[in-house]
């Protein structure tokens, strides 16, 4: 009789303090996410409320960029959209491969060696250089000799992106387990082959994450561009020669004007920039998910 009536094994979570701690921790994590949502919602609400009225097909595809005093509806922001796309794109093409290569060096070839340690440390230091100092740097090194151009702007943005890409890629490469590498070596692969075909694909998700964040930041930067691209009102298709403009600089110069047209254009440009960058990020993440070898 007694044996049949024994209570079933208690499979619930541990009782008492441990369980409460767990619950508190989980709710704190959810709370943290809410803390992230609130400012995001605020900002997006402001940008959409102020900028949505400016968006129209002619705003997105038309040009030239009209003077500040002109009300909304005349001209468009295409020169700035084009400028942002090509300058940021060029910066990404320069910074991302170099950054990933640098991270490969530091992690795969350098190890604990002195040069790798110095590169790692200096990359951290370089992330702290203010964007305006980068702009001034490129101004004195490049613009003084070759004039204002989209290329100079791309260099400035690439200098901003490079340390971020190196450090984040390096962290991701560090996380690839050693047995993977060892197994490849055991099969007779050379180091470059191991790195390119085994380690890199294993870390690609994280590397792309870091690169996307760096690119998103670069697309929104104003200060370095103020010293390197001047401004134009009509599209300058040649990114290597001649002054150019970008959405970020247009947002800044228009928002600091009292005219209603300029204000509307500024917020419209802000909304456009956020939308473009966000769409590109989603697309990049989706594309990467297809390439990721190891599922998360």
């Amino acid at each position, binding site marked *: 009789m007694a044996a049949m009536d024994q209570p079933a094994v208690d499979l619930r979570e541990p009782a008492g303090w441990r369980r409460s701690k767990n619950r508190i921790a989980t709710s704190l994590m959810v709370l943290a996410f809410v803390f992230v949502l609130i400012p995001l919602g605020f900002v997006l609400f402001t940008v959409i409320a102020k900028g949505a009225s400016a968006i129209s097909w002619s705003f997105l595809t038309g040009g*030239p960029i*009209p*003077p*500040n*005093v002109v009300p909304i509806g005349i001209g468009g922001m295409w020169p700035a959209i084009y400028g942002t796309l*090509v300058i940021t794109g*060029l910066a990404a*093409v320069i910074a991302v491969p170099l950054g990933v290569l640098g991270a490969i060096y530091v992690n795969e070839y350098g190890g604990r060696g002195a040069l790798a340690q110095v590169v790692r440390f200096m990359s951290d230091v370089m992330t702290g250089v203010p964007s305006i100092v980068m702009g001034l740097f490129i101004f004195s090194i490049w*613009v*003084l000799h*070759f*004039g*204002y*151009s989209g290329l100079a702007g791309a260099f400035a943005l690439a200098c901003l992106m490079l340390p971020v890409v190196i450090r984040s890629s390096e962290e991701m490469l560090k996380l690839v387990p050693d047995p993977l590498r060892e197994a490849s070596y055991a099969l007779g692969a050379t180091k470059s082959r191991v790195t390119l*075909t085994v380690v890199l*694909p294993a870390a690609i998700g994280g590397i792309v994450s870091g690169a996307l964040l760096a690119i998103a930041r670069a697309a929104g930067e104003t200060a370095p561009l*103020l010293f390197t691209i*001047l*401004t*134009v*009102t*009509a599209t*300058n*298709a*040649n*990114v*290597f*020669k*001649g*002054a150019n403009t970008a959405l970020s600089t247009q947002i800044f*110069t228009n928002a*600091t*004007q*009292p*005219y209603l047209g300029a204000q509307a254009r500024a917020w419209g440009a802000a909304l456009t920039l956020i939308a473009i960058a966000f769409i590109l990020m989603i697309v990049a993440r989706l594309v990467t998910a297809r*390439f990721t070898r190891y599922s998360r």
Partner: protein
Amino acid sequence: MRLRYRQQVTAAGVSVVALALTLGACSSSSSSSPSGGSSASGGASSSSGGSNLSGTLNGSGSTFQLTFQQEAIAAFKSAQPNLTVNYGGGGSGKGRTDLAAGTVNFAGSDSPIPSDEASSFQGKTILYFPVIIGPITMAYNLSGVSNLKLSPATIAGIFSGKIKTWNDPAIKADNSGANLPSTAITLAVRSDSSGTTQNFTEFLVDATGSAWSLGSSSTIKWPSSARAASGNPGVAQVVKSTPGAIGYVDYSTAKASGLTFASVKNKDGSFIAPSPESATAAADAVALKPDLTFAAVWQGGANAYPITYQSWDLVNAKQPTAADAANLKAYLGYLLGDGQKLLPQIGLAPLPSSLDQKAVAQLDKITS
């Protein structure tokens, strides 16, 4: 499996490279815009009247000129469709630096080249072309008071923090009969360096002498209770949203923001309200130096507004190519001619005709 991955990566890499090359190729084959300061392409006729000039002119500098430059550039496009002008703003100091470095063809500056910058212009003759005149208003936010009058000494007291409330005896003395509340005064000032600050403080130095102790510069150490904001519109915004605030805002911004501004006592003793007319009156009476520099603040003249300032476009007298010289002459000539008609609608004052004529005559000094 591995082969397919490698092929995918190679394909992606090749396509990126191809895209980059295509972009570069087709963009360099289309509008080739040479960098500012170097030679302009295309046929340049010697007269500035023809509409067949081509090339690019780059300018940067004073943000006071920015609105005017934008309007003029847009309007100039119909006069010279193949001549592109770009004006980047960025501050008078930056403009002068750019001009000294040769990265721009002309620089906008609210003040003549200061002595500590003279060395970067060694060996070059710089021509000053005055282009606009504008008043700096004393914009305030005080309900019930619409016709505030201020004398320079009172302004100095307010902005140095000595006068703290609106019903201070000094303000009362300027405004006999007005009903001034006891609201505390909130100062609205510039957080960024600016030619507006420079000229406003120069006015205070000229008009009040030792009563103004904070000096005259593009950047001033204001009292710690002052609210700093970026740009004229930033200051306008602070004034508009803070009851009891007073700030110095240029006229076109003050008008566009719908602010109330005070009449200021001028050198002749009358309280004058800021307007394009009173600014032009101030410019009429300036002591003009041979290189066309002057200071329009605190000038005599019965109808002159005492806090008026000005901006020049600076160019090198000697241009690297004939095309550059012709293009500059055409654009500057436009600014001094038809461009002046654009000014009243943006709240700026046109140059007095005598000054304008002298500036136009100076155009001939641009050679190559």
